[in-house]
């Protein structure tokens, strides 16, 4: 297994409250790994343990096969959900300070900052104070200080909150580029559309337990229900529907088309029956719509959590 991060049997309690209950997750090298879960599920607790901000009660974390050690903080970049910078410190000075805390020399930090400031075209902000910048501008600085020491593991907690769509896209592009350059990315979010877009792997944490983990495509396959959405222009919709009900589970469907025909969701017993269904439909009228309903991340999320109750 080529995993950058191995989380093994982590237990973390705060007093009587169990934040993480025997959680194990493997994060493959070079992936974008979505760490999903409702509020209060334990994501932040896990992220803090990976960052060595808090220590687990039991269990181990391995980075590149070695148990996590204090020096490893220099190889991790972390952007917390609650963004924060020193309000009355100058942008450049602040970025330099944070880079040096991550173990960069002053000279090296300056060089890399220049690269990023040029890339984002924000060199003019160097001597401004954070409180003079807009929220979106501060977010860019935050992103830069997270990635500038070229960590092998990057942890983003809700990276797109606070960005407008254009800047969110810019950041998403940068994150994917960092992955392509070899970084491994942990991506914690509630926004499922960004999961679809970005993540190769996901893990779902709910009520302190991991309830789902794997490659996003595999999980989708697991959650598919063999349901097809069909639209049919036919002279005799009632008869067709009655006929379909004889062999399949049929539910009313509601989707938007420019035609008013018969719209149904049809659940097959086996995915291989799809051809039979299609040929049957073609004999009854004009097929306008034929699509497998693949669960998106959002549905998987809701289904998995409802199952966990």
């Amino acid at each position, binding site marked *: 297994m080529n995993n950058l991060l191995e989380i093994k049997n982590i237990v973390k309690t705060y007093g009587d409250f169990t934040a993480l209950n025997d959680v194990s997750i493997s994060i493959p090298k070079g992936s974008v790994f979505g760490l999903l879960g409702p509020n209060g599920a334990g994501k932040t607790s896990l992220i803090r343990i990976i960052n060595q901000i*808090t220590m687990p009660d039991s269990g181990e974390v391995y980075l590149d096969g070695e148990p996590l050690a204090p020096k490893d903080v220099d190889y*991790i970049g972390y952007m917390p959900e609650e963004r924060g910078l020193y309000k009355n410190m100058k942008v450049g000075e602040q970025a330099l300070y944070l880079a040096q805390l991550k173990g960069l020399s002053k000279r090296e930090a300056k060089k890399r900052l220049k690269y990023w400031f040029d890339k984002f075209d924000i060199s003019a902000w160097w001597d401004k104070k954070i409180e003079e910048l807009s929220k979106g501008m501060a977010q860019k600085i935050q992103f830069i200080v997270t990635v500038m020491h070229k960590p092998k593991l990057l942890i983003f907690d809700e990276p797109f909150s606070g960005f407008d769509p254009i800047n969110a896209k810019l950041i998403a592009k940068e994150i994917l580029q960092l992955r392509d350059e070899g970084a491994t990315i942990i991506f914690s979010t509630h926004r499922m559309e960004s999961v679809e877009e970005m993540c190769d792997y996901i893990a779902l944490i709910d009520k302190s337990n991991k309830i789902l983990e794997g490659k996003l495509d595999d999980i989708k396959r697991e959650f598919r229900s063999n349901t097809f959405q069909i639209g049919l222009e036919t002279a005799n919709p009632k008869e067709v529907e009655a006929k379909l009900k004889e062999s399949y589970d049929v539910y009313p469907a509601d989707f938007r088309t420019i035609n008013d025909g018969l719209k149904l969701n049809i659940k097959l017993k086996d995915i291989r029956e799809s051809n039979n269904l299609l040929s049957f439909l073609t004999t009854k009228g004009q097929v306008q719509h034929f699509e497998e309903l693949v669960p998106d991340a959002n549905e998987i999320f809701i289904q998995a959590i409802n199952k966990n109750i």
Partner: protein
Amino acid sequence: MSKLKLIIQREFNAKVRNKSFLIMTFLAPLLIAGLGFLIAFLTQKNDEKVKEIVYVDESGLFSKDNFNDSKTIKYQDYSAIGIDETKKKVENGDFYGVLYVPKKESIELLAKSIEFYSKETPGMSLMGVIEGKVETHFRNLKLTNFGIDLKKIKASKINSDIKMFNFSGQESSKLNNALKIAAGLIAGVLLQIFVVIYGTSVMRSVIEEKTSRIVEIIVSSVKPFQLMLGKIIGNASAGLLQFLIWGVLIFIISSVLSFVFGIDMVEMQSSKIPADQLSAAKETVSPDKLQLLIQEVYRLPFLKLFILFIYYFIGGFFLYSSLFAAIGAAVDNETDTQQFLLPINLPLVLALYVGVFAVQNDPNGPIVTILSMIPFTSPIVMLMRVPFGVPWYELAISMALLLVTFVFMVWFSAKIYRVGILMYGKKPTYKDLYKWLKY
């Protein structure tokens, strides 16, 4: 280690570059020195106004000899004019006030029935002076009545000045004692001010990091303990720098001002002492004694004082500021700090009061000795005791206790700090803080 250095540097810079720090550092000495001289100047001017007081004596017991004029009070005998007429004159503003001595059968009765009329309520010191004159005269009259020769009484007056020695063979004097009290007091008060100002500053800095949420980024790079330590050391260095600048500036400004305005420091000080102590004080600061004063100042154990001052200063500051840091970490905003600040301020205030009152009376008394052992009060109380000479073992116990407690407190605070900086939203109780210790 180099990360700690970075943090110290940042905290120091953040503090020193702050506008309010610059203003406080350079304006405060100007204000203090200016205010001091303003007070001295005004007091001088105020005293220069001569008060004219008349007396109407119907008893016939007083003469002008009993009312010697002073620089600011002049007396006139208006007995011939009568009290009613004189009162009118006072009302018209011809004089400041009138002292009325009626005729009575006995001195005791008379002593209770003397009256003073004036347009405005006279100051305490003025009444003190007049009462003193009347009392002296009555006492002399009674002594004469008892058949005691006043001359003999005068001749019996003797000044005794007990010379005090300790066993290291040093001669000490009352003057020396006063100096020791002053030296101890200055050291103790400085420490208290420093702890409160810079402890609060550490606390604010923690709260600021917490509310701006940068703390999570910082602690993903350094240990919370390093961050806390860096903060304390950074703030302490900024504070020491400020004190140093203050000291130098106050010295320069007061030298310049006293040179320009010619205000005599010795006179300025004596003008603050109430009238009845004035003569005694003047006696003490006679020219040859002034030389003694300087000698005595030089005879204070400066090196020992200085070393101990630094030790208790650092120990005391770390002890308290680590607590301040823990409080800052526990809360979300400054208004929530009140309930936790009280138990911190209490020992500080207690130490200062005990220092001021008890150390003066008996620098080796039991309460003082105990408080100079307890680490939360020892920095202030012990510093006040040191000039009087403290047995070496007491000093050793006190210093050791401070060191142990200081290390323990930093560890204890770091635990609360570590948990607290990542807790938002809820105002914690003492019970919560106790739970955090076990996380």
